[in-house]
């Protein structure tokens, strides 16, 4: 959908910026040694620091710092040699310290960029303003008791990366593409699992409307929109709401809004006047974070090939179309699977077709991706080989594929078991052709009289008689000669 809204008073354009909170993949929390696993029993992954017991002190987890650096490098961003942890002060029961340790004036990562693919095939660069490290809060459970709120501190103190974009997006689709691309990069890097439904990636949307070409309008922030679909829906709703307000001569109040996942509307949470004064100041329990070049270089060398680079390579080395390459690199697991199928020897385009059209197509029907594939990369490669060396025909291959998909069996095993090996013995093909011609003398006469179209009829009959196993090219060749007489 376009980001342009034609209102009754003229044209409006969306201006969108996103703040993504990405949980850092790590074995322990940002400032404590407590372990992390998703779905643990409430309050079982909490140590004295996470519960903010008196006298407890934070100690920075170096691994989380490396993960943030890695992410920064993956976004092509500046890594700040000096960053500062500050306290963001506010009271809430799931925030045991009464402050969140975050970074404010001096984040660990500065400006970067994410390229998104637009539907028209062009690429747009979305600026990343900054990335900073901070503690996650615990969870308040309001639905466990009639009058009480329960607090689960398992999440308290887990490391988050807050990744803030520039207000560079102009439509809900661009915002969706940005989130998907960011998630892909994070997954490639192994710095966040990107599972939005488990809350390991959460998104705040900043949106304002303006007349195209004019300065930015007043924005609203929509908090915690936690799926790509909701991000799009929230943007569409909020844009319309703002246009309605503006066209009635009203003004947009700068405020924080909430996305209602049931009614699919945004609602006001708090106005600018009610905004918290977080009283940020440098955390005196922690020293400024100084990074040395050697460490940054070490992380740089550990970076995997990222989606953009991989896509370019797939296009230039394998000759794939940008679309196919894009589909394959969208998930690291797909790209890996693809290259395992190729195994350095198979036809890249044939392999891409099988993978994208047949395998991903089949998986997608059940809502799955490559991780759930019943067919291994080796087996798919084997099928492609059987096709390439004429052991089976393309039509048979589709049947074999369907069998593989259903049973997980190997291609060669299925071909053997079902006797699907292609007939390439010219003598045997000749026998079938002779029999077909003998049975269809009338058609032969018509053909010879100039009705060329009947050639297809003969091919079909021969293939049918051979149980589909005759090599189509050889059938064509032999049939042509025989029909000609």
């Amino acid at each position, binding site marked *: 959908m376009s980001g342009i809204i034609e209102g009754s008073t003229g044209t409006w354009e969306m201006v969108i910026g996103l703040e993504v909170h990405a949980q850092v993949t790590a074995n322990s929390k940002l400032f404590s040694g407590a372990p992390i696993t998703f779905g643990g029993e409430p309050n079982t992954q909490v140590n*004295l620091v996470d*519960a*903010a*017991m*008196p*006298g*407890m*002190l*934070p*100690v*920075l987890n170096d691994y989380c710092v490396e993960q943030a650096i890695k992410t920064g490098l993956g976004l092509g961003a500046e890594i700040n040699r000096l960053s500062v942890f500050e*306290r963001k*002060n506010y*009271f809430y*029961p799931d925030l*045991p*310290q*009464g*402050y969140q340790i975050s970074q404010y004036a001096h984040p660990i990562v500065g400006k970067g960029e994410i390229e998104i693919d637009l539907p028209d095939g062009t690429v747009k660069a979305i600026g990343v303003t900054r990335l900073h490290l901070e503690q996650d809060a615990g969870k308040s459970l309001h639905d466990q008791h009639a009058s009480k*709120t329960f*607090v689960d501190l398992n999440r308290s103190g887990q490391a988050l990366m807050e990744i803030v974009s520039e207000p560079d997006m102009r439509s809900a689709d661009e915002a969706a593409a940005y989130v998907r691309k960011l998630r892909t990069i994070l997954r490639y890097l192994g710095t966040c699992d990107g599972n939005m439904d488990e809350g390991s990636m959460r998104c705040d949307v900043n949106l304002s409307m303006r007349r195209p070409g004019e300065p930015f309008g007043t924005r609203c922030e929509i908090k915690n929109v936690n799926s790509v679909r909701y991000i799009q829906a929230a943007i569409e709703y909020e844009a319309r709401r703002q246009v309605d307000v503006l066209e009635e001569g009203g003004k947009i109040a700068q405020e924080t809004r909430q996305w209602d996942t049931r009614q699919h509307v945004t609602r006001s949470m708090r106005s600018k006047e009610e905004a918290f*004064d977080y*009283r*940020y*100041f440098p955390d*005196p*329990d*922690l*020293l400024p974070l100084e990074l040395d070049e050697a460490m940054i270089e070490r992380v740089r060398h550990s970076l995997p090939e990222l989606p953009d680079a991989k896509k370019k390579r797939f296009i230039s080395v394998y000759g794939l179309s940008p679309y196919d390459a894009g589909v394959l690199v969208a998930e690291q697991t797909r790209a890996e699977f693809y290259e395992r199928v190729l195994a350095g020897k198979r036809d890249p385009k044939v392999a891409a077709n099988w993978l994208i059209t047949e395998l991903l197509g089949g998986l997608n029907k059940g809502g799955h991706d490559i991780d759930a594939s019943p067919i291994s990369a080796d087996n798919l490669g084997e099928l492609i080989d059987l096709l390439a060396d004429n052991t089976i025909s393309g039509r048979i291959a589709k049947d074999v594929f369907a069998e593989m998909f259903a049973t997980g069996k190997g291609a060669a095993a299925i071909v053997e078991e079902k006797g699907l090996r292609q007939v390439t013995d010219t003598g045997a093909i000749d026998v079938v052709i002779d029999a077909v011609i003998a049975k269809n003398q009338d058609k032969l006469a018509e053909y010879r009289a100039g009705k060329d179209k009947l050639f297809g009829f003969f091919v079909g009959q021969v293939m049918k008689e051979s149980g589909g196993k005759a090599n189509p090219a050889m059938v064509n060749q032999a049939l042509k000669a025989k029909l000609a007489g």
Partner: protein
Amino acid sequence: MSLTHLTIAESVKKLESGEISSAELTEAHVRAIEGARALNAFIVETPELAMDQARAVDARHGKGERGVLEGVPLAIKDLFCTKGVQTTAGSKILEGFVPPYESTVTANLWRDGAVMLGKANLDEFAMGSSNITSAYGPVESPWRRQGDNRPLVPGGSSGGSAAAVAARLAPGATGTDTGGSIRQPAAFCGIVGIKPTYGRCSRWGTIAFASSLDQAGAFARTVEDTAIMLGSMAGYDPQDSTSIDLPVPDYRAALGRSVKGLRIGIPKEYRVDGMSGEIDKLWRDGEAWFRDAGAEIVEISLPHTRYALATYYIVAPAECSSNLARYDGVRYGLRVPGKDLTEQYEATRAQGFGAEVKRRILIGTYVLSAGYFDAYYIKAQKVRALIARDFSNAFKSCDLILTPTAPSAAFALGEKTDDPIAMYLNDVFTVPASLAGLPGISVPAGLDSSGLPLGLQLIGRPFDEETVFAGAAALEKAAVFTAVPQIMAV
């Protein structure tokens, strides 16, 4: 000699030789504490624990290596979390709180064989200079003015620790010092108190007041005893990101160093208006003693001194306003229910905190607020850097700085209490070194005209506690301070 009058060094020697047992020594102090409850020096006495620890020490006598404090009973300021023993920080909000963990500093003491007599009273969350802000009642100094039986304050915030050591209820005690909370009560109570360099002792498990200033230290009746204690308490702790990974020197060995040739700096800005003639005379005595011992007296300048108190009373409240946010009634300590969350927070904190703590939380919240942050907090940080630079400049021309510890002797309970600013002035000589993170020691050096003890302070370079101890030992030797408090265990 009475067991309660032994120094730590003497006790260690007698315990090692078997002349006395830890059980005897500990029991003498347990009895002394029972007999001096009027001082209110302890919030919790732990006689059973003390006797168990003492007997355990005695049982292993002669087996294996002895800790430097093997069998020596100590008082622990109730700001150090002690596993299984109530820890309140002198606040009602933590009444009944029993930590399931032991602070690093006290764990180090127990590792070295020390025995815990109890948890010493203090100003609430260590905020105060007279020990009158404790939710468990004020501590009385064991000292009295001549011909005047009115109770005096012991100083603060470590008032219970200082009073206990002065009254011979413990040969040594832990303290914490944020702006003078060890040095000032040591001066008021006629004992020795050392605050080491910021980062020397771990802050892990010590309840925070102002994190960038808080530092643990020791009280005892001799310089040597504080050197023994600090040697045990100090050390790098990976659990405290601000603790420094440096080896802990043998402080006791430094005591014998000559001060000959040392340059003793006298900051001209410390001659504050209204300083009593007695304090001034004591200070000049100190100069003379050092000169007699072969040290060189040099005048130095610490030009930003006059901004130190104002700076301190922005930085410390700012940090405390955030540090004390965790006392919200949700997880531990006092909870006063309300009809909703906000009301519960408000009622809990209104009832749980005393007036001085509330005052500082309010000040701290204010100076960190949007619109005021730059004018107060940022400005204070800049001035703090200038104060630290003053000291590093001064230490180019001197090795130690000599000042009075406090501008007066102890005052009576009830005096100065209605004027927080007058109270804050108590810390005028101790706060600058705190802001700069420097080691400082107070040594009893004389009496005022009413017979109350006065202390002199030595400030050293960062992590140069050895020179501080050497200077303090020289001062102690020259001052020959033998006065004892009127209230004292026999």
